[in-house]
């Protein structure tokens, strides 16, 4: 088995607000091997962004429990200075909103070059050369001119390419992409995903892809982690997840995807909404919306079990359904 590049174990990130404690991430385990693409899927408020920000130690919340090892180092124990060495150098991040992720008062080149100036002590000229090189790498035409341009002159798709160039400037081992295509239109989305796949292939960068778009997951990821209410509810390789989803929530997600050959007029939707954060969890937090909810679901919290090799799910159905085929996954 390949060495794990990032390993998050039992992570709990809480927010202490005036209204009480909010457990945004409540015991999450995620691991990524070198060169692998792992997707985190979940609704808004499921804790996927907080998980990724915690991995970079940039979360505004407080890590209460757990460990995060990156490249053999326990990063929760590092000093802020040591952490800065890693950020942008070995672990980089791209954000959702390309319109606001670039500093409006500096040129594109300044911002791409910032990482190499911080981490590799490049001179201004070297940093600019690196910026041009990176712009070419991410497929921006007229890189020599664009490098001296200000962000507001670029379109959303171009800016997202610039963001990727910024993040990749130091050849990081891990790229965390927080909804990188959500703010873009569909054709540009495809281009950006293609670009990320190419970079991954040529540089061997591992990618942690956070998204709520199952189409993006299907296209990009090797493995998928489904999060619900701050916890991992299902984890498996991408093919298994799409063909044999086991957790009722994942099944619901799959059913709610439109298909062309479907006869149904109305798209399936999971009833109810994500529980309010901060409410005390008793039992399975998906139980109120679950079609298969049993008495035990409201009393105890189900454990995450390995139901097949490499396929984990957090549901009591697997225990009670042993021996019978039980709830057939909905597959189109």
């Amino acid at each position, binding site marked *: 088995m390949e060495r794990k590049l990032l390993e998050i174990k039992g992570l709990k990130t809480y927010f202490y607000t005036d209204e009480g404690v909010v457990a945004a991430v409540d015991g999450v385990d995620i691991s990524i091997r070198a060169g692998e693409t792992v997707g985190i899927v979940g609704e808004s408020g499921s804790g996927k962004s907080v998980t990724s920000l915690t991995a*970079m130690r*940039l979360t505004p919340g407080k890590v209460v429990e757990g460990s995060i090892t990156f490249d053999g180092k326990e990063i929760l124990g590092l000093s802020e200075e040591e952490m*800065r*060495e*890693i*950020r*942008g*150098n070995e672990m*980089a*991040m791209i*954000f*959702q*909103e390309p*319109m*606001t*992720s*670039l*500093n*409006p*008062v*500096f040129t594109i080149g300044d911002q791409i070059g*910032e*990482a190499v100036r*911080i*981490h590799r002590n490049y001179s201004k000229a070297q940093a600019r050369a690196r910026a041009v090189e990176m712009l070419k790498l991410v497929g921006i035409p007229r890189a020599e*001119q664009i490098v*001296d*341009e*200000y962000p*507001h*002159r*670029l*379109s959303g798709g171009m800016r997202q390419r610039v*963001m990727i160039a*910024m*993040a990749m400037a130091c050849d990081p081992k891990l790229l965390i992409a927080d909804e990188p295509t959500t703010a873009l239109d569909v054709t540009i989305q495809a281009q950006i995903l293609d670009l990320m796949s190419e970079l991954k292939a040529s540089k061997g960068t591992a990618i942690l892809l956070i998204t709520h778009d199952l189409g993006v997951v299907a296209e990009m990821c090797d493995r998928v982690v489904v999060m619900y209410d701050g916890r991992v509810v299902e984890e498996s390789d991408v093919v298994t997840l799409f063909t044999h989803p086991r957790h009722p929530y994942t099944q619901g997600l799959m059913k709610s995807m439109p298909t062309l050959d479907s006869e149904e007029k109305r798209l399936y939707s999971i009833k109810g909404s994500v529980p309010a954060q901060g409410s005390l969890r008793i039992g399975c937090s998906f139980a109120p919306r679950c079609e298969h909810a049993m008495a035990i679901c409201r009393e105890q919290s189900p454990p995450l079990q390995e139901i097949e090799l490499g396929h984990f799910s957090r549901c009591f159905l697997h225990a009670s359904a042993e021996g019978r085929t039980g709830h057939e996954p909905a597959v189109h």
Partner: protein
Amino acid sequence: MSDTDVSVQVATQAAEVSYQRRSPWASMLRRFRKNKRALVGFWMVVVFVGIAVFAQAIAPYDPIEQNMDVILQPPSADHLFGTDEYGRDILSRIIYGSQISLMIGIVGVLISVVIGVGLGTVSGYFGGRTDMFIMRIMDIFMAFPSFLLALAIVSVLGPGMVNVMIAIGIFSVPTFARISRSAVISVKNKEFIEAAKSMGASHARVIFKHVLPNSVAPIIVLSTMRIATAILTASGLSFLGMGAQPPTPEWGAMLSTGREYLRTAPHVSTIPGLAIMFMVLAFNMLGDGLRDALDPKMKL
């Protein structure tokens, strides 16, 4: 700078057609040039600065030389603005006085910018207890009427030009701290700050490279307007005898001594009064123009 959002669509469309680089500052300059009132203010300030710089060359007389033969003369060809109670040429005194007013205004504001923006930035960027502590102290300063505060400081330090500058510097600190704090708070939650942090930038780097350059607009505007207030306050302090000491040709002091001759020689106090008015007006118009050019939605 929320106007960039608007200009984005226009700019990206135009990008293909006309290819010229435009930084946010260039488009600000363009908007400023279109504003007539701002331009008038700007040129008035330029004229005042010119007068102050070339005072020695322009002034027809020595500002403190007394001439008992021509006491309290009304404006004439020899003395364009007349003479005061010691026969000194008022025009020359006004010209030299502009040096003092400008210096007090600029140095005073500089003091408050350095201290106020420093405190406000730290406060806004780090938040929490630091913010609480700094801003509560600023609130205490704000509780005093600003002129009384300046007067109290000068009373403690003793009258004199340098002390007036310090007093004016201190009394504007809370305003600068508040404005820069709010500017920093609105900038620090932008995604590019998060992005800079994720690139491994240190706090100092984030503050100086990403936060401050994006929050200078209100600080520039406030500085310009505060120069006007500083000049007015300095004149006020001198009027009360707490500022420049005779025979320094300070406008406020001149206004004060001229009061005694208001019935017989009204020009002695009205002319310094007009000078103060025009200089304050110039800085206020410039400040308004800068505000409109930098961010029309800014509330200052």
